[in-house]
């Protein structure tokens, strides 16, 4: 039986493909900047937004987006102001995010706590039609912003100082990238869940970079891997009756050793070319 005959599965599939598409795009910049765990942090911060939404009984996407965006800007300010304590300050914000999420959700009562679970690890059945419109709108914004500023973000990711001497506003680009990571987190929280959404940003990139030689091809292959992992993970989540977050992440992780195996003959061939 085809699970995608159900409306809710169709919506979940679209939501999963959208996150599989945009998360690795942002992840490629984050990995290049050695900020692989930033998405994780944004997920923790967004959790407070979800908690507030459960308490106020409003749509979680909006509050999660606002709280995560504020968190993104605060993180960038801290990173710009204090070189040494930046790491520690980030940790404080991240823990605060989780604590806030659980705190506000618990104030909302037992229903709030169980709803929180759906946002932590994803859920097949909760993506409403209006959610879907919101997610797609956010994804379109991410793609448009990357189309305009992606090149400057690439130069900044290569070398902040060199980019600055080229006239690139590196502080603004860095903040914009962190805000995009926050947007991706919110887009992914329905399907992959806030605790695992960072994986879909980073793992496809880690798998792809074993096979590629340039930034652009790494991003393209990572997007392919991200979409593939989302579809495979979502389908198996339906049959196994588990939340889609873990299965999507497992599917992405499985790509890593497969890519490593594929990389062996490519590396050999390249070495031969260099010797010849």
């Amino acid at each position, binding site marked *: 039986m085809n699970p995608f005959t159900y409306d809710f599965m169709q919506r979940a599939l679209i939501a999963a493909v959208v996150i599989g598409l945009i998360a690795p795009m942002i992840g*490629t910049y984050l*990995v*290049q*900047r*050695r900020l692989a765990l930033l998405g994780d942090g944004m997920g923790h911060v967004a959790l407070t937004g979800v908690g507030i939404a459960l308490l106020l009984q409003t749509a979680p996407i909006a509050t999660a987006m606002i709280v995560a965006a504020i968190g993104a800007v605060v993180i960038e300010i801290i990173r710009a102001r204090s070189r040494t304590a930046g790491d520690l300050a980030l940790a404080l914000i991240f823990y605060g995010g989780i604590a806030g999420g659980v705190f506000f959700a618990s104030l909302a009562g037992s229903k709030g706590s169980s709803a929180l679970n759906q946002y932590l690890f994803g859920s097949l059945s909760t993506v409403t039609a209006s959610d879907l419109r919101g997610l797609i709108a956010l994804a379109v914004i991410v793609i448009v912003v990357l189309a*305009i*500023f992606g*090149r*400057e973000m*690439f*130069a900044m*990711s*290569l*070398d*902040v*100082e*060199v*980019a*600055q*001497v*080229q*006239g*690139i*506003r590196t502080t603004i680009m860095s903040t914009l990238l962190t805000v995009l990571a926050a947007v991706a987190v919110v887009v992914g929280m329905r399907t992959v869940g806030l605790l695992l959404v960072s994986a879909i940003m980073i793992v496809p*990139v880690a798998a792809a*970079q074993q096979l*590629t*030689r*340039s*930034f*652009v*091809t*790494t991003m393209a292959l990572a997007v392919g891997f991200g979409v593939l992992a989302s579809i495979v993970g979502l389908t198996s989540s339906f049959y196994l009756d588990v939340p889609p977050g873990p299965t999507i992440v497992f599917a992405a992780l499985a790509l890593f050793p497969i890519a490593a195996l594929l990389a062996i003959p490519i590396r050999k061939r390249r070495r031969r070319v260099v010797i010849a």
Partner: protein
Amino acid sequence: MSIEPAVFDLRHACVEFDGEHVVDEVDLTIRDGEFVAILGENGTGKTTLMRALLGLVPLDHGTLRIFGAPQEQFGSWQRLAYVPQRLLAAGNVPVSVQEVVGSARISPRYRFRRDRESAARTNAALETVGLLDRRRDRFDSLSGGQQRRVMIARALTTNADVFVFDEPTAGVDAESQHLLAGTLAGLKAEGRTIVLVTHELGEISDLATRAVVLGHSDHGSVIYDGPTPVPRHLRHDIAHHDHDHVAESSTGLLESPETP
């Protein structure tokens, strides 16, 4: 014809780190078309001075004008090309040689329109440094000297008026060093302004027409500012620490231990 303002005009510049004057009372005016070598032993603040000229290090005292504009108002960044020793974040995601070179022309000017010259200029610059056939390879698969040549190609794509090089000879093999000397001579012949920081006297610093030697004195960081060659007694000062570096750099092991 109006007189073009100085490229860099530094007045009474001081940069402090933890209360210590790394750059002390420096007056430095670099005019259009000059070829200036900033020399000094390690720890005399020459890299910090260069970074201050580029606006990467804030001045604790003094003023900087770039092409006549106060540094914080300066906006004609396409007139400057900075060649660092290495890229800060190279190697996390594969980046191809041509992407590194092409990144030099990325700027806010090309947000909404395509940079049509980018590909042709990238290829021409890679041809100049002899690495066109490696353009699709991973940047981090190249040797140290080749990576430095890519960095030079990167700057060459910009058509800048001013080129600033940080330690361009440190850890560079003879072939790359020779190529660098040729490139610098070419830029000089075209009338470009060149500023380079180095702790080695030799083929490269001899191309310069003006030397600024940094050291420690009661009158500030600059102990000599005048035509090349550097006076004999100062040469000894610079070259003194240099013998080990030259030996190391010929084996390609040297990472210049410059303090920030």
